[in-house]
């Protein structure tokens, strides 16, 4: 089969970056499998329980970069109890024991301890990049080890993690010889920051391109930081609730003006509106803007800023921008590709007439032809609007709509929103991710099964009438990888219809549905390559298994394919069938 020496083939493989493609290459023949194995640098593991570290290292001994994901997506919404799992320590231990020259570790929804970070920092001489997203279990002491021991560190990126802030001097732990930083993001740290140490660090990091500060960095420090890092491309500002005095303001604005490479702006927790104009000079260069934490800013302040951002490709905003604000976005941001509109009032108590509605969504779809990803929280929607959106934007790859009130129908016709979502899946032939909401019957799932051929991830909540709904999806969406369902009337018939299907998917989550213990047991019986987990925190259910009622409904079901059988680290309230 090989007409070329292995080195040539390997060189060709170097140009193949995507995981999917590399996986395909490795299936061509034994020779290619072997060459691919030894040349693979980046490995992505979407579910840390699908494989174990020993087998990973066995197959890819030359790996340099590892991405691991732990808890299921619904863990973000507190549906997965603490201590469920997703511990990174065994992975780091195994990698440390082996001869893998790890350079990059990216973790999402995993439990990371200070011990793991310490071990990581001491085990890999060339370690360069640590990215932690939605992780928990560690403190700033762990960060201190990374800072102190990773001599080649280029990237430390902490996104939305639960970090215990010991208010230690972790920033001080970067040695004076550390000058290699390219990216530093500690926005999620809640405690005080040693600003002097930070300034010194930034001053000796000429390659620093991305800097995201936490709320404790004051405005004058920001000005100084930007003055010594005018090469910044990506900036996350902290929290400025007091209006700046004129002198500080001028200093800030002068510093910002010099940052002509700045393309991305975020942060803005608790920002006094008068700080925003300092950023006007660089708005025209921005391609990414995240104001989704700036709860206290009124729509019109935001609008003034956005009107200057003509090149924006990515915008994350709060719904307080209103339909009027979205109309401005639609008129201004013709390059917009991704929009996320978050609810400013999560508990939904305010009678907030200024929040966005279907009108804003339609305006965006009409004004932004390049839009392909949307996350939109709103209080009301109509089929007509969704149909219009589908017509305006047939290029959606990700479409996530969250109507705040479950079961809410089309607010004009009082009908279900089946037709609206149906129009979306029919028009958007490239749709890979979809979240549905509002009043929905089995019909919408018929549409999804019929049209959403590329769909890989589907999130369902408070929707459907019978098992048929789930069956339409499982039968129709051949590329489905992740299916997550909550509070919907799907039961055993749907669950058990095609058990083999689940081995073609990464995972299935069902909570507060109609599946029973008996159904789950039957599912698990003939599926050695599936882990079927029943999560039940209810005190009463932890005991007598001889008394258990197979007709009892399962609170939370999480099943996933795996090559390594039942995991050993599950807490007592997780039962793996």
């Amino acid at each position, binding site marked *: 089969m090989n007409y070329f020496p292995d080195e040539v083939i390997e060189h060709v493989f170097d140009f193949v970056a995507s995981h999917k493609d590399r996986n395909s290459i490795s299936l061509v023949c034994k020779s290619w499998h072997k060459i691919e194995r030894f040349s693979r640098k980046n490995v992505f593991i979407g579910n840390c329980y699908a494989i174990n570290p020993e087998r990973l290292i066995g197959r890819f001994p030359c790996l340099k970069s590892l991405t691991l994901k732990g808890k299921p997506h*619904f863990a*973000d*919404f*507190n*549906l997965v109890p603490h201590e469920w799992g997703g511990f990174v320590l065994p992975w780091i231990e195994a990698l440390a024991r082996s001869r893998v020259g790890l350079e990059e570790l990216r973790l999402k929804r995993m439990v990371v301890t200070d011990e793991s970070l310490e071990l990581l920092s001491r085990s890999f001489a060339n370690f360069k990049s640590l990215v932690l997203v*939605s992780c928990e279990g560690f403190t700033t002491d762990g960060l201190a080890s990374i800072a102190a021991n990773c001599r080649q560190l280029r990237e430390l990126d902490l996104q*939305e*993690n*639960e970090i215990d802030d010991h208010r230690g001097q972790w920033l001080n732990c970067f040695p004076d010889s550390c000058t290699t930083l390219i990216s530093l993001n500690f926005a*999620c740290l809640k405690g005080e920051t040693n600003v002097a140490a930070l300034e010194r660090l930034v001053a000796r990091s000429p390659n620093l391109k991305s800097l995201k500060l936490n709320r404790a960095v004051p405005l004058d420090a920001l000005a100084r930081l930007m003055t010594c890092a005018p090469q910044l491309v990506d900036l996350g500002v902290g929290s400025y*609730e007091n209006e700046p005095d004129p002198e500080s303001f001028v200093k800030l604005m002068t510093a910002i003006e010099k940052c002509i490479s700045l393309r991305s702006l975020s942060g803005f*927790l*608790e920002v006094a509106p008068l700080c925003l104009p300092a950023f006007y000079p660089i708005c025209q260069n921005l391609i990414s803007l995240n104001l*989704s*934490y700036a*709860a*206290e800013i009124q729509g019109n302040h935001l609008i003034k800023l956005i009107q200057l951002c003509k090149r924006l490709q990515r915008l994350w905003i709060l719904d307080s921008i209103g339909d009027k604000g979205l109309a401005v976005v639609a008129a201004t941001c013709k390059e917009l590709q991704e929009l996320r509109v*978050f*609810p*400013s*009032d*999560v*508990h*939904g*108590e*305010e*009678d907030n007439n200024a929040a966005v509605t279907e009108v804003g969504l339609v305006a965006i779809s009409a004004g932004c032809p390049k839009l392909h990803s949307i996350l939109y*929280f709103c209080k009301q929607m109509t089929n007509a609007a969704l149909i219009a959106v589908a017509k305006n934007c047939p290029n959606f790859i990700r479409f996530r709509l*969250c109507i*705040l*009130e*479950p*079961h*809410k*129908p*089309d*607010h004009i*016709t*009082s009908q279900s929103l089946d037709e609206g979502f149906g129009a979306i899946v029919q028009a958007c032939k490239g749709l890979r991710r979809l*979240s549905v909401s509002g009043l929905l019957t089995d019909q919408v799932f018929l549409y999804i099964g019929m049209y959403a051929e590329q769909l890989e991830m589907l*999130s369902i*909540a*408070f929707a459907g009438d019978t098992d048929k709904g789930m069956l339409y999806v499982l039968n129709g969406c051949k590329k489905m990888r992740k299916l997550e369902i*909550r*509070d919907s009337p799907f039961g055993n018939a749907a669950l058990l219809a095609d058990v083999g299907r689940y081995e073609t998917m990464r995972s299935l989550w069902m909570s*507060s549905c109609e599946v029973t213990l008996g159904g789950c047991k039957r599912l698990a019986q003939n599926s050695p390559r599936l882990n079927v987990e029943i999560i*039940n*925190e*209810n005190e009463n259910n932890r005991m007598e298994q001889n008394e258990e009622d197979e007709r009892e*409904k399962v*609170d939370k079901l999480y099943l996933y394919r795996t090559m390594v059988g039942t995991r050993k680290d599950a807490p007592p309230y997780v039962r793996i069938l």
Partner: protein
Amino acid sequence: MAKEGLGLEITELRLGLPGDNYSEISIWGSKNKKRVLSDMMTSSSLNTENENGVVSSAEDESLPVVKSQAVGWPPVCSYRRQKNNEEASKAIGYVKVSMDGVPYLRKIDLGSSNGYNNLATVLENLFGCLGLGVAKEGKKCEYIIIYEDKDRDWMLVGDVPWQMFKESCKRLRIVKRSDATGFGLQRD
């Protein structure tokens, strides 16, 4: 359910927070042990036909009306949710106040109040109702004031020192004395 689209929900009689449109979701299988309050409400609403003739819609689908939202809904990640909570009530010192039977929410600045008596007066003025007793005087009044603390427990206003109350109070609620007996209020 069919009524919802016609906007008649405002006329629907139910127990719940004013303006709380999606409180009618059942919590299937309990998650949060601290939701003592909602459990209490549920049992009291199932049994009661009180003076107002308010009856809960407990019969259909066996879903008792509970005043708290479904867990994890809306699907906002917990990090963002925390920021949202912090934003709303932190340094600014404003807390939301709701009163049973009143369809709107108000916000007051706890920071500008100097004590419980002052707070009671402010609330009386805000909602136009008299005799808002706080804690000890509560026995005489039709309404009492409760608050939600950092741990999301409901406590009776007036039990703890003022400063401690200011720091831990996340929001306030004025409820009828008669409804509150089933609240399972936490007392330190």
